[in-house]
Each structure stands twice: as structure tokens, then as C-alpha cells.
């Protein structure tokens, strides 16, 4: 009788990376639906376009790197990256903007660093930051929520949107559908107080609900991921808390010049970042304690960049900055192990 010899353990949880990625994709559904509902078909088109590009680039680079293509394509990580980039890009962004972004994310930010699990920076955020700096016009032309366009559900039709993205429609046409985001309005208010800006701006006074709804949708997805134990609470909660606390402090002292904490939590990419971007395990800190530090630092940085920076939203830069700091955080956030009176610090051993 000859039986196999194996080292323990002999049973495994039927849990795969692909499964993890599928659940993440599933959790983005409410957010995608909300974006589509309030801002039209653009988001969906971008997602499909970015997803297709991501798979193609991934397959190509895997072939170049002589890695098993299907084995890696199946893990779904490229799709998640593409999706996160697509929902961050303005719905009417031209096709080539998305293409450049996906290329940078998949080929440069991920595979040139060694592929899945080896990239020090969040690929979607690298791509987003690059696009924002390279194509500021295309990247800041966000769509106005449909409520500002009139009665019913006055969004651009699917075919028109497709035409706009792939370049067959005049700029003038979709200019009527675009508008500033609440963060833009508050950032470029030219000396008005917060309240004055609020009253003056249509987006803030009437359209803000769209952003609240989208943020709520992302939050729902996040709760789902927490429930399924795909992510842990440490990074998202500490980020949201840090952002809220920073905003409260400044709003409490000077409500004329600073936005209220709820505004910070419910607009821009705050919720998307908290549950889908900073929870990217590869580029974040390792331990639970490390993730708390990592998340809180991002929260503070987002507030700083939003309030005093050049860009209306600072998620991408905040995340990239903290990605850079993650290995250092790891050195000083080892948990206290069983039987030890305190946790070990530093790198240990020779460098």
C-alpha cells in the first residue's frame, strides 16, 4: 500500500485569491449602480473598457514575463484594479485617458515591480495620480448629477455617452452634462465663506445628495467586505475617524473657512478610498496595528490636501505617500506575541 506523504495541515478552507477578488468586485456593485444612476452611463462604459484593457495588458505582460497566463488571469486582481481606476475617472473621460491609466496601472505599477503581491504602490492610485497630473482638463471634467439637468432622468443616452468617450461627439455637446464637484466648488470659492458658497452653488445646495448617495453605496459595499472578513476594520475605520476628527477640529474653530466633517466623509472619494483603496493588502501596512497607523495617516493627509493642497481631492496622493511609508510602519508595529511582555521593534538582525 502506498499513500501520499504530506505535511500538515491536511485540510484547507476553500478560499482563493480569485474568490477574494470576486467578493471585492461584488461589493463595488452598489457604488457602480449609484454612480450610473446619478451620473449616467459613462461609469459603466469606462468599467467595461478598462476591464477589457486590463485583461489584455495583463495577458500581454504575463506572456512577456513567461508566466502562466490563465493561472494569473484567473485571480481577478487585474479586474479589481481596472474597476477601481474606472470609477475614479470622470465618466466622460476620453477612451485614451482610460487606456493610458490602465497601462500604467497594470504594466508599470504592478508588473514591472514583480507582479501580484510585489507592488509597493497601489496600481490604481499610481495611474490616477499620473492621469491627474498629465491630463488635468480631462480628469477634472466631472459630470453634473442628473438632478441639476431638469425633470425625470435627464442623463446622456448610452450611445451618446459611448460616442463622447470614443471621440465622435463634439466637446460642446457633453459640456452641458459636466460640472464641478462639491469639492471643486468649495475649493475654488474665491473668498466666500462656507455658507455663502453653499448658498450660491447649485451643486452644493441641490446636487450634493448625489454624492451622499454614492458614498453611502460604497459604504454598504465596505460593510459587506467587513462582514465577509475580506477586509479588517482597522484601516478604514481609523482613516474615517482621523478625517472626521481633523475636520471637526477645524470646523469647530472656524466654520466659515472649513467644511463640516460630514461633508468630508460623504463627498469625493472618501468612502471608496476607505473600503476599497486603502484596504489593498499588498501596498498597505501588514499588522493590525500598522493598518491603524496607515489608515489614520491617510485620513489626516486627505484632509490636509483637500484643505490646503492644489487639488480638490487628495486620496490618490495620500494613499501613495502612505504606501511609501508602509514598510517603515511595519518595522514599528509588530504585535505583541503570546508569551512576550512587549512587542519587538525595528528590523531585527542584519539589514
Amino acid at each position, binding site marked *: *500500500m*502506498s*499513500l*501520499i*506523504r*504530506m*505535511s*500538515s*495541515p*491536511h*485540510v*484547507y*478552507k476553500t*478560499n*482563493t*485569491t480569485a*474568490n*477574494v477578488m470576486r467578493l471585492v468586485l461584488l461589493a463595488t456593485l452598489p457604488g457602480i449602480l449609484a454612480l450610473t444612476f446619478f451620473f449616467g452611463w459613462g461609469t459603466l462604459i469606462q468599467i467595461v473598457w478598462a476591464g477589457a484593457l486590463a485583461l489584455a495588458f495583463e495577458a500581454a505582460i504575463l506572456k512577456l514575463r513567461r508566466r502562466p497566463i490563465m*493561472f494569473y488571469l484567473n*485571480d481577478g*486582481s487585474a479586474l479589481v484594479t481596472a474597476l477601481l481606476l474606472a470609477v475614479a475617472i470622470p465618466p466622460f473621460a476620453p477612451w485614451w485617458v482610460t487606456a493610458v491609466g490602465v497601462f500604467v496601472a497594470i504594466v508599470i505599477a504592478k508588473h514591472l515591480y514583480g*507582479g*501580484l*503581491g*510585489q507592488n509597493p504602490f497601489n496600481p490604481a492610485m499610481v495611474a490616477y495620480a499620473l492621469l491627474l497630473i498629465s491630463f488635468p482638463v480631462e480628469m477634472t471634467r466631472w459630470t453634473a448629477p442628473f438632478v441639476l439637468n431638469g425633470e425625470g432622468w435627464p442623463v446622456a443616452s448610452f450611445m451618446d455617452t459611448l460616442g463622447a468617450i470614443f471621440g465622435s461627439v463634439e466637446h460642446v455637446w457633453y459640456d452641458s452634462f459636466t460640472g464641478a464637484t462639491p469639492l471643486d466648488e468649495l475649493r475654488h470659492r474665491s473668498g466666500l465663506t462656507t455658507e455663502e458658497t453653499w448658498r450660491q452653488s447649485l451643486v452644493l445646495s441641490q446636487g450634493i445628495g448625489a454624492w451622499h448617495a454614492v458614498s453611502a453605496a460604497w459604504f454598504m459595499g465596505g460593510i459587506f467586505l467587513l462582514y465577509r*472578513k475580506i477586509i*479588517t476594520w482597522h484601516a478604514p475605520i481609523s482613516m474615517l475617524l482621523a478625517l472626521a476628527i481633523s475636520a471637526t477640529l477645524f470646523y469647530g474653530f472656524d466654520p466659515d473657512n472649513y467644511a463640516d466633517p460630514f461633508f468630508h466623509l460623504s463627498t469625493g472619494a472618501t468612502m471608496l478610498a476607505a473600503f476599497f483603496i486603502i484596504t489593498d*493588502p*499588498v501596498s*498597505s501596512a*501588514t*499588522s*493590525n496595528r500598522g*493598518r491603524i497607523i496607515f489608515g489614520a495617516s491617510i485620513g489626516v493627509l486627505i484632509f490636509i490636501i483637500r484643505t490646503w493642497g492644489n487639488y480638490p481631492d487628495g486620496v490618490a496622493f495620500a494613499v501613495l505617500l502612505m504606501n511609501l511609508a508602509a514598510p517603515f510602519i*511595519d518595522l514599528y508595529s*509588530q*504585535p*505583541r*506575541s*503570546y*508569551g*512576550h*511582555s512587549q512587542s*519587538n521593534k*525595528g*528590523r*531585527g*538582525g*542584519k539589514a
Partner: protein
Amino acid sequence: MGKVFAFHGGIHPPENKKQSTRTPIRKAPLPKLLYLPLQQHIGMAASPLVNVGDRVLKGQMIAEPVGRISASLHAPTSGTIRSIGPHPVPHASGLESDCIVIESDGQDEWLEHKGLEDYTQLEPSALIEHIRRCGIAGMGGAGFPTDVKLHLGDDHIVNTLIINAAECEPYITADDMLMRERAHEILGGIRVISHLLKPSHIMIGIEDNKSHAIHTLESVLKGCDLNIDIRVVPTKYPSGGERQLIQLLTGLEVPSGHIPADIGIVCQNIGTTAAIYRAVHHGEPLISRIVTVTGDAVAQPQNLEALIGTPFADLLDAANVYENKLYRLVMGGPMMGVTIEHDQIPVIKTTNCIIAATIDEMPPAPPEQPCIRCNMCEQVCPVTLLPQQLYWFSKGREFDKAKHHNLFDCIECGACAYVCPSSIPLVQYYRFAKSEIRTEEAEQRKADHARERFEARQARLEREQEEKEARRKARAEEAARAQKARKSAETETTAAEPVQDINALKTAAAVARTKLKKAQKALDAARDSGEGDIPALEAAVQAAQTSSEQAQQALEKAEGAKPAAPAAVDTKQLKTAAAVARTKLKKAQKALDAARESGEGDLATLEAALKAAQESADQAQQAFEQAESGASTDAAAAGPDLKQLKTAAAVARTKLKKARDALKNAEDKGLEGLDKLRATLTTLEQKADEADKAYKDAESAAGASAAPAQAAPIDMKALKQQVSIMRTKLKKAEAALDGLEGDERTQAEQALEELRQRHAEADKAFKAAEQAQIDAAAAQGVDLKQLKIDAAMARAAVTKLERALAKTEEAQERTSIEAELVTARDKAEQLNKTLQQHEPA
């Protein structure tokens, strides 16, 4: 029920326990062959007490413990010892180990045995010894000899006894069934342990999925006088880990690198308590245990009471295994068990479960994917490690960092590997890293040990060397002191005797004689020519005669005063003296004959002189003969000195040759530093000549009369060579001169001049040596007078030249005169030396 704490992490794998608890514990059929590994426990392997062919009874001890941490082994049934040797055993390595094989006789005949009547009256050590002799070792997993843990009360204060009944691994129900069916045995065992350790608190930790067992235990414990708590803990793997259970029940952590007893806690497996009960109350050693046989590949999963040593095949048969469905055979639980490749592997004391799994039940692990640092492993780690970091460090062989991340606190429970979405076999990585680190450390220790030994040796050698040196120094000092003492004594004695410098006197006398002769000659010449100041010359002759006589007198006096014994027998001198005396005799004879023939002269005086000469010749001959007999004994002593001189001469010659080569080289290359080299060469030449001479002298002094003749040709040859070399050099230099111009030319010309001189010198020296040789050869019959005259002439020439030099002012002439002067001086010296050598004493 007390408070239950929590430990970090943990997982909830499918339990799969129900299928094996449907039927009560059944006795496994008696196997035909039993394989009993000598090592079923932690510590030293037991040592066999039986021989092949012996008949053993059930319960008879067949192997005894070796050392403190060891356990004995008993025959599980009656039968015959078939063999003692290697057989496959249940171990992760899959290696074979020594086993005692018993062929059962089917009678299952017990050795006479009975329990202890009242263990509470026994000395604790006697009770522990009884338990030790019953071969009881921990039945949970590690198999730690139980008696060692019961001894702990001696050096540890044990206040808490924890009975581990958690049984957290999926599939296993052996402890569950034991509690359900034999709760009173468990209680009995706990009483024994409690009697020995006297803990203030006893806790039974049990997972909440065993409600039947909990219920049974509760009913048994009702009204129990002991302070026993049943603590129900939530079902979570690995709550049954010793350290995790301690944390669950007490909230305390066992410090890393310590044992639970260090914080006053002792843990015992619940199966062990039942075994202790049977040993103490029935005198039954540990020969059987309850084994869960389960898995999808057996038809009737159940718990069997199996004899230790029963092959797995027998148990699988008892549970009706589906051979074709069997894919993986695991001993222990699915999380930490080991796979068994061979169904003849026996049940041992720690075998709690056999899982016969189908391929669907335990499929091979999917291929490993890249780690995405998802952090799930950290969430489940019961030791709060960072498994993914450990994985990266192990994979990257950064063992220092792995150690810094507390790799050695890992209990290898497999929870991290269980949850890993990338199917990374994390535990294997940790095992690899641990073994690598252990190997490294062992090597380090070895290296350190070797270094220490080397250093110790080095220190010892140094010490010895120093001691030796010290001894040597002491000896040297002693010798120096003795030497000093001797020397001072010697100087005292020599100081007492006035030194009679005979040699000096001799020289003085000779000089005086020479002067006299010179004066005489001058007078004769003056008389012949009829010119010059004859009276003055006469006065000078007179004065010279007087001084010569005086000198001669002084010499004679000194010689007369010289003690006979230390006449350190200069044989050569004596010989010469004898020869001289003979010559004088002959001369005197001749003179007498001539006088007789001519009929002129004072015949009587001549005859007297002849007689005197004869006497002196005889005396000299005698003295010589006497001395020679003494010298023959001295010759041996002279030998080494001679050799030394020869060596010195050879060395000098070698040096000379080298210097010459260097010079030649330098000359070939150019003119830089030539002068220096030349000076060196000259010095060396002189030295070599001196050495040669000294050697020759010594050789002749050694008494071998033939030696000088032999040595002379050598010297001649050398001189001849020298001359020829000089000639060559001269020619070369001349050739070189043609190619040069200006300052260099003048320099070169000078050098050439020098060379020419030296050549002339060498030539002269050669000729002089030739002459000297002839002189030496003729020493016996030398015309001493002639020699003396020659020497005087040479000296005169020197003086003349000196005067001429003083007068001359022209540079060129001066140089030529100087050259001549040098030659003349040399010649004079040479002659003087020869003269001194041959002059009679």
C-alpha cells in the same frame, strides 16, 4: 462555572466529529503481530529487557526507561518476542526506528498484577516511581513522560492543575468518548495527580461541542470534595493547545521559552488521567488506548480500544476500510497530524486518531499563488505572530528577521495555512526556517567550540614557550655568572704574572739586527767607495750593534723567564728554529772549512762557533721533537678552528666574487656608484686575502708540513684569476671609454686609470705571492739574510718614494709615484711578514 478568557485568532474548520461518536468504544480485535517502538515519548528511547524468542505475558515490562525523561514499555498481550530491530513508525520523517515485535499467542494471559492498596499512605516518590514503571506518557500529542510532570511539585509551586479535554482538532473523538464512558476513571486519575501536586484549583477545559461528555462529567463530579471546575470553552481551533488552553482558562500567558509550571500551572491530558487511574488502582501499565478510526474511506467510523503496537491495518479492517477509496492516511488530526504511507505502522501511546481520507475529503493542496499580504493569517494566528512576514523572511532566507518576528513561538498549528487564499503551505516554510536556524546555530556552536579550543591551545603553547624561555634565560644568567666568576679568577692569576711579550721583544731584536746590518752595509759601501762620512757611519754601526745586543739580551732573558709548560708549543716556529739552527750549523761548517782551506782566519773561534751552532741545532731539534709530540695531541683541537677558518675564507671569497659580479654589472651598465662598489671590492679582496692567509697559517700551524704546499696553489690560482679578471675589466672599461664623451669621459678615464692601477697591483700581488710561495717553499733552506736584505731594500724604496712624493708637485707624476709607493709598501710589508715568519726564535 468560572470566567473563560479568549486567545487571539483561531479558526473553525469543519468538525467532522459526529460520525465517530455514534457507537460506543469497542475493543479492537487482538492482532497477530504487535510492533512496539522503543521511543513513543519525548526523551531517551527505552532499553529492551527481553531477547528474541522470550515468551512475555501481558503487562510484563519489556523495556526500561533510560535517564530521567524516558518511559518504560510493556507487552500489550502475551506472546513471543519475534525480533528487535528497525520497523516503520508513525513519525513525520517517515523513517524507521527500533521496535520490539511480539507475536501474539492469542491467550492474552496477564502477568499477575494488582493495584496499590492505598496510594495516599505511600511516599510521593514511591507513587511516582510506580507511575513511571507503568510507562505512562502524555496521551495528547507530545508524549511527555507523565512522572516527570508529577515531580514538578518539588521545585515549582503548582497552584493550578488543568486537565486538557478540549480536543480541538476536527475528527478526533477519543477523549470525548472516554469522558462519556469512563468519567469515574478520569476522576480517579485526577485524585491521584491532585494528591501528588496538591493544587489549589483544578480546571477541566472542554470545548462546547461535547455536551454529552460535559454532562457526564458534571454528574460524576457532583459532590466531589476536590475543587474541580469544568470550564466550557468555545469551539475554536487550537483551543486544545496547552498554552492556548491556559490562556483561555486563566487569562495568563506562559512566557516565551518557559514551561507552564513556571507560572504555577500543570497541564495533563484527560486520557492520561484515566491511564494513571488504571495504573494506580489496578496495577495495569499503559498497554492500550482509545483510537478514533474515522474518515470517509472507512464504512464504520468509531472509537476502538487498541493495544499499543497494533498495526493500523488491523484497526482499519475493524472499521471496514474501503481500500480503493483510501487516498491519505493521517495519524492525529487533520491540522497537525502526520501522514502515514504504510498501514503496518503501529499504534503508539500518542495515537489518538487515524483518518482514512478520500481524495475529495483531503484533496491535494492547490498550487501556491503569490502572497497578497491579505492579512488573513495574522487574524487567525493563536500566538499573535505575523505569519505573512514570517513567510517572506523564510522564503527570502532572512532568518535573523524571522527570529526577530518570534518564529520560534510558532506552534505550527496550521491555522494560517488553513485560511491562506493563495494556498501557501506556510507551516512548511516555518519548519524549513526553524530547521535552518537550528542547523545554523548548531554550526555556530560547533565553530565557537572549535575556536575556544583553538584559543585555549594557543594560550597553552604560548605559556609553555614562555616558561621555556624563562628557564633558558635563567640558565643563561647562571652560565654568565659562572663565566664572570671564572674570568675574574683568571685575570687575577694572569695579572700576577707579568706578561712577557716575547714576540714584541723578538721583533725589536730583529729590527735592531736589521738596522745594524743596514748600518754595516752602508759603512761597507762607504768604505768601498771611499766616500761619505765614514766615522759617522761607524758610530751608527756601533750604536746599532749596541741596541741589537740589548734587544737580543732582553729577548733571551724573557725567553729564559718564560715558563716551560705554557711554551704553547709553536711547533712551526720550533721547526723553523731547528731548520735555521741547522742552516747556521752548515754555514758555520762551511766557514770553518773555507777557513781551513784558505788557512786564514781565526780557526779556533770558528770551531767554537761551529760547536755552539751544533749545540743550538741539536737543542732546536730536540725542542721541535718534543713540541711535535705535544702538538699531535693538539692537532685535534686545532681541527675545528681550521675548519672555521676555511669556512670564513670561503665566505670571504664568495662575497668577493659577488662584489666583483656587482662591479662588473655596474661597469657594464655605466659608471654610477662605481667608486663605492670598487671600494667595497677592495675591502673584500683584502678580507678574502686575509682570510685565506689566516686559513693557510692555521693550516700550516696544525702541523701538517705538506699543507702549505697544497694551499699555496689554490691561492695562486685565485690570484691568477683575479689578475685575469682585472685584465678583462680593464679591457672592458677601455672599450666603454671609446663610447663616452665629455665629463663622463673624464670620469671614465679616471676610473680606467684606477682600474689599470688595480690591475698592476693585482699583477704585482700575484707576482709577490709567487715570490712568497717560493720563499715559503724554500723556508727550510732560506737565505734569511737575503730575505732580510730584500725587506730592508723594500723599506728603503718605500722611504725613497715617500720622499720623492713629498718633493714632487706635478699631479701626474704624483699619481704615478703614489702608485709606485703603494706597490712598494705592499712589497715591503709582504717581505717583512715573510721575514717575521721565518726568523728564528
